[in-house]
């Protein structure tokens, strides 16, 4: 798999993401700079990492979404390329119009740094092949603005077209209000593009890839990608 991570000023989970990708591919991903205007040829996966691009001032991800490189990312997506946006990266994807909806301030108005459980709604994508449908896995969340919002028509469409990838749930897989700590509409934690090749999610599966650090709950996501692009 040929993967690249984009560096925006203020992002801070790029090294975490690089470790997770290196774990499944055996080599470090490329790091790209936000001012670049083109992506290297032959990329399988572009990753927008977590953090606080531009300090999360104004709106999370808003300024990064206007970076020169985002034109190239949009073109990559339009060509059917894969894009993964995690946390701040998810916010950038919605701000750039690559995914619908927006991430509002957490309902509690507090930063939430804790484990959450996510239920896999689709296990037939390049991101989720290694999971079972309905499987629940644990990941770290760490965000102040992860409260997914879209209008009802959009939410209905997402559900109807099967584009909800992940939902907050209890460890037993029940989708409850208590398990939905940030208040997201319909407990949505991750959303797919119609061609299933762009995924945005708030929690950080890249922090659960090492048995010596915090378990390997997040590893299947990266293994899915590596497997999908194994030939490449």
């Amino acid at each position, binding site marked *: 798999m040929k993967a690249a991570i984009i560096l925006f*000023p203020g*992002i801070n989970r790029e*090294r*975490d993401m690089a470790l997770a990708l290196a774990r499944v591919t055996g080599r470090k991903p490329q790091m790209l700079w936000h001012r670049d205007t083109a992506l290297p040829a032959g990329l399988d996966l572009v990753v927008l990492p977590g953090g*606080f691009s*531009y300090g999360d001032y104004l709106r999370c991800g808003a300024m990064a979404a206007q970076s020169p490189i985002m034109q190239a990312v949009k073109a990559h997506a339009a060509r059917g390329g894969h894009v993964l946006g995690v946390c701040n990266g998810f916010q950038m994807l919605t701000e750039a119009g690559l995914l619908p909806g927006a991430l509002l301030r957490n309902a509690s108005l*507090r930063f939430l*740094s804790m484990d959450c459980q996510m239920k896999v709604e689709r296990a037939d994508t390049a991101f989720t092949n290694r999971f079972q449908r309905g499987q629940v896995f644990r990941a*770290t969340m760490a965000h102040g603005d992860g409260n997914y919002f879209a209008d009802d028509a959009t939410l209905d469409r997402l559900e109807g077209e099967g584009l909800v990838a992940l939902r907050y749930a209890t460890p037993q897989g029940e989708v409850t209000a208590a398990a939905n700590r940030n208040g997201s509409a319909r407990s949505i934690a991750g959303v797919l593009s119609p061609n299933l090749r762009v995924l945005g999610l708030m929690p950080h599966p890249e922090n659960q890839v090492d048995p010596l650090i915090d378990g390997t709950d997040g590893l299947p996501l990266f293994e899915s990608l590596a497997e999908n692009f194994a030939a490449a």
Partner: protein
Amino acid sequence: MTDTPALLDPARAKQLAAEFGLKPDEYDRVLAILGRTPSLTELGVFSVMWSEHCSYKSSRVWLRELPTKAPWVIQGPGENAGVIDIGEGLAAIFKMESHNHPSFIEPYQGAATGVGGILRDVFTMGARPIANLNALRFGTPDAPRMKRVIDGVVRGIGGYGNCVGVPTVGGEVNFHPAYNGNPLVNAMTVGIAPADRIFLSAAAGVGNPVVYVGSKTGRDGIHGATMASAEFSADSEEKRPTVQIGDPFAEKLLIEACLELMATDAIVAIQDMGAAGLTSSSVEMAGKGGVGIELVLDDVPQRETGMSAYEMMLSESQERMLMVLKPGREAVAEAIFTKWELDFAVIGHITDTGRITIRHKGALEADIPLAPLESEAPLYRRPTAETPKLPVLDAASVADPLGPEAALLKLVGSLDLCSRRWIWDQYDSMVGGQTAKRPGAADAAVVRIEDHSRALAMTTDCTPRYCLADPEAGGAQAVAEAWRNLTAVGAKPLAITDNMNFGNPEKPEIMGQFASAVRGMAAACTALDFPVVSGNVSLYNETEGRAILPTPAIGGVGVLEDVAQAVGLALAPGLDLVLIGETRGWLGQSLWLREIAGQEAGAPPPVDLAAERRNGDFVRGRILAGTVKACHDLSDGGLLVALAEMAMAGDTGATLLPPPAALPAHAHWFGEDQARYLLAVTDGAALLAEAAAAGVPATRIGRSGGEALVLAGGPSISVARLQEAHERTLPALMADG
């Protein structure tokens, strides 16, 4: 160009000197050094450099007593942070610093800029910060403004640390009315650098450019350093305009840009602009290097218009650094800082004059000889009065009003022992992907070093109520507890940083507390091979004459060769529980005594340093041998509280053997004897035999399993009820904070 700056009118100068906090004899010394009346800028420079905050004038004579050396110490106190060798060519760089006064005036920004400041102290030496910790002391939550202070401080620490992407992995919190008007916010940062790439602050090389990088300078925080050196009064609200705003985004860029430049060979010396901003950074860099420095302020990046030399020299605007570059490396540096969208300006050069000269708009604004600015700085051996020793409390003389069940439930829900989850849930503890033990998981946080198996263990500790009762024993206890917390995860304790928070040093009883605490700390550091490599002093923590509890906060760092060796405190079923160390049932100054019997009385538990060392070395040995499944040191609340904490963390109960008949049961369960650990192991008998062979007191106290703590012939306390009591307190308190 004239050769003297515009001098103040002598009478006006004298009056201003007093307003700036210089004592009359200190001002006379200024006159003697200069041989004339100072200019406004010169007076500003003297007053901040000679403030308590920058000069350590009341504390220096005592701090010298602290041991600072060990074979693994690369850099002790005196630089921006301490540096120790942790093996494999790596160094750990760390320090703790207070932001007490600013955090009371504006809790969010005060705490946030505290985190920003300590981060800069660490990355300025070449380290990538890998962890933050914070030691907090609040008043009682029902005191005026206190909930807002708690809420703002926690949000501020999280807001800054989360944004810069350094995990906040640990800390401690106490509540006591003595902090009602003066909460304490102590922040600690730990970073990692190659051991042979440490950056220091001594300037060198006549003609070398002096470079300013980071954010622009505004009028923020002028005289912040002198504010931090004055006692609070009811009109402190008037001092509000000195509040500084943190910009963690700028700090993140500054970290990346500095580390990128440090990978080249362009830097001769570097120093962050902390308290007293451009003044202290330029004076200290030139002073340490024994050179002179000339600053031309016209090119200082400015956020506001019409700033004077005085204002620029004293501004405490955040996220700024000063560097001396090798000749001709300006372009390399500028390209990096421009790439990171930060300001960059050459604002002067190194001279051979031994003086600091400051020019602005073609005029000389200051011209001060550096050597006497440092060597003639005031140094006081202030009078001390010893804290009278309290009698030892006889445990049998205190009746137990509640019994173990009710007492335990009350204790685990009390302010000083309740779960800190509400706090750490607001701190990103995982960013970086290396946090193996996060808050609540172990006695010390454990963070692995990227691309290595090695990990650092980190903790902060102090028990201020012990320090008030007996500052010497309390100082020793704080060091011993930090050492014990590192040991309890399996780490080898290496060194400490300290943050000495005390009241007004001009009062003999306060200065006595300080001197005694240092004595106790020094004894413990020596006995445990645990030197002090950096630290910070915060005095005048008083409001309307009422001092805080003496609070020498200790930040300890240790190393584990393999992160896989680290153990946590969560209990699992089917294990033998073995108590290491001697239990005499010490109730004096215990939390049980305060919370259950309603007294703050008696001498605090004595610290037997030989026993600490022996017991700790034994425990660490067993952990590294791989036979320990969980470990927790005994501190606040004693044995039963420690066991409850292990049970709650692991969702597992235990069945306990009866307490020894020789002790009152409450003294056995809740006494706070030191040098003790509770271990969960598969083979208790083997551990007891090993302990006996090592001459270490060890007792089997029960076995883990079930859903409750079952006391022999006594109550069965469900873990779920304990958890409910433990978790409820802070969220309930802060529900509408």
